[in-house]
């Protein structure tokens, strides 16, 4: 069976993960947003990569498994970039067209301008 691979020292990896967890909690306490983002999300990525590589054995798995998983993430990114222009801008009024009213307001208020 192909799982007769050498096993790394899992306890050591677990210890590193725990340490990273500690950093990710302490980091945000500084209250600086950039530090929060890096320690919270950056470390989450590192932890996930470590769990993936050593616990899920992606480091010794066939290369394309890694591509498979990554492709799924790329599609999610695509969804984000296609959708966010709408959802991030939506004031819950996507179907209201403000331009006629604006034009109206401008013609009305034209005299009072300057």
């Amino acid at each position, binding site marked *: 069976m192909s799982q007769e691979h050498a096993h790394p020292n899992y306890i050591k990896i677990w210890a590193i993960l725990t340490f990273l967890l500690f950093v990710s*909690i302490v980091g945000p306490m500084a209250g600086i947003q950039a530090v929060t983002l890096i320690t*919270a999300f950056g470390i*989450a990525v590192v932890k996930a990569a470590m*769990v993936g590589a050593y616990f899920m054995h992606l480091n010794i798995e066939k290369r394309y498994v890694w591509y498979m998983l990554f492709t799924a993430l790329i599609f999610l990114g695509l969804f984000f970039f296609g959708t966010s222009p709408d959802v*991030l801008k939506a004031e819950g009024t996507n179907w209201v067209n403000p331009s006629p009213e604006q034009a109206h307001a401008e013609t009305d208020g034209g005299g009072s301008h300057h």
Partner: protein
Amino acid sequence: MAFTAPLATARSATDIPTGRLATWWVVVSEIVIFGGLVVCYIMFRLHHTDWAEHASHTSTTAGAFNTFVLLTSSLFIVLAHQAASARDLKKAFRYIWFTIGGGCIFLVVKSIEWTNEISHGYTLFTNNFWSFYYVTTGLHGLHVIAGMVIMAIISIGVKKGEHLPRVEYIGIYWHFVDIVWLFLFPLFYIAK
């Protein structure tokens, strides 16, 4: 009629055992499910800057403790896999149940958290932040429960020395559930 596995199951043109290959595909399909939910949440979160205030009402301590619990249970299940491939059945069985125990602790902490939040008036309906919070952690919790049930079933086989590769497969799934939590933790607890 007893079920006999077809010869197809034992074939391995890719050199990855069929069970493990399928587990990877399960993980892929789960990535897009959780990912879809998380992407929706992130978009709302970026849009509604006032959600930071709500996020500060989740308990970072409980979240951090649960992260630790899941990381440790991940360690146990990978040790179970190591033991199983060395055919140390007793040890494998024990580690599987340690993992299930980790899942239990996780769920207990989670339910205390939920109770606490609900009693402070933060329910599923308070606003969309809390709706996302309950739906996402709830979906994750269901995955934890599913993982525990499957592990319990697998442990019976392990005791008899059957289907040992399954320990590895459930491990992959469990690590995935762990990784999902690694991201839910900063998303719902740390970022304020």
